[in-house]
């Protein structure tokens, strides 16, 4: 809930935000009523200022904030980008041989053999 003076006019705009449109409108209107009642009370008997509600809040048709779909898409794009960048960085730093075929393509040389790491039970002296 927030309130702000509209430009240099004697108008006060009360704003409420939330997830339930009807409830949000009710909150804004209640706040306006309460404020008006408070001003009326404090300036009772004097020729003081009075407040009028010129434009009551109505429940909006659509959310004012970003839509859920937009949030999901943005998160997806951000996630994919971050993941790709991270994978690229790891690839650059690590630079290990992922695939012998890649090594063949890189050097233009054939793989003549692939020899396994030999476990100690294969040791013979």
């Amino acid at each position, binding site marked *: 809930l927030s309130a702000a003076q509209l430009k240099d006019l004697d108008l006060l705009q009360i704003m409420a935000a939330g997830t339930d449109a009807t409830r949000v409108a009710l909150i804004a209107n209640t706040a306006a009523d309460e404020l008006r009642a408070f001003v009326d009370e404090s300036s009772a008997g004097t020729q003081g200022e009075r407040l009028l509600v010129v434009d009551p809040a109505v429940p909006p048709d659509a959310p004012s904030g970003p839509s859920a779909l937009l949030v999901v898409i943005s998160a997806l794009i951000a996630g994919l980008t971050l993941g790709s960048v991270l994978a690229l960085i790891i690839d650059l730093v690590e630079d290990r041989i992922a695939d012998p075929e890649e090594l063949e393509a890189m050097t233009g040389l054939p793989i003549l*053999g*692939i020899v396994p790491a030999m476990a100690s039970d*294969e040791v013979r002296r």
Partner: protein
Amino acid sequence: MSKKTNRLILAAPNSSGAESYMALRTNLAFAGKGEPVKTLLIAGATEGCGKSTVALNLGHFAAAGGKSVVLIDGDMRKLALTRHFDCAKYPGLSMALTSQGLSTSPLRPTTTPRLWILPSGPIPPSSANLLASPNTGRLIQSLAEAYDLVIVDSPPVLAVADASILATLVDGIIVVADAKHSKRRDVRRAVDMLLKVHGNVLGLVVNQATGSAARFQYTSYGI
């Protein structure tokens, strides 16, 4: 029996390792494009990619296949083959290159029939200077005339000049890359350096096959 930390492992008969080396032996026979490869350098970009293990096993399985084979320990810094065969105290490559008359006598027999080792010999002050002498090429050639296959182990291409020098003195070169630890750019730089000295790089051997590398091995058996 060994206290050594970096022991070389010889693949047991009928193991998958033995199969791999026999496949490599066969592939090498066709890699020379008609020219028989009699002298072969085993090179690698960096330390620990498995050069000496590949040299040892290839030598062993080539000898087991009926060839007479000489392993030269051209890595006068690490001496992996020399230590494997327990012949660090014998004269070897360094002495053969410095002595006046060339001799094949520093060759030592191994427990594998038809497989001989030329140990690295006493460590010289500069192995690159020693290898750069014309004697190196003469020694390798004289061994190639007397034996079917000469396999030269070498220090890392990217570390010292030794491998680049040896590359110019052999029929063919294979570059060993460790699938887990070698970096792609290092392998490429090593290959580039060997090609720059006009070395005949026959192909690559990928060490420590796991995952995709293991799958590749099955497909490469083909037909």
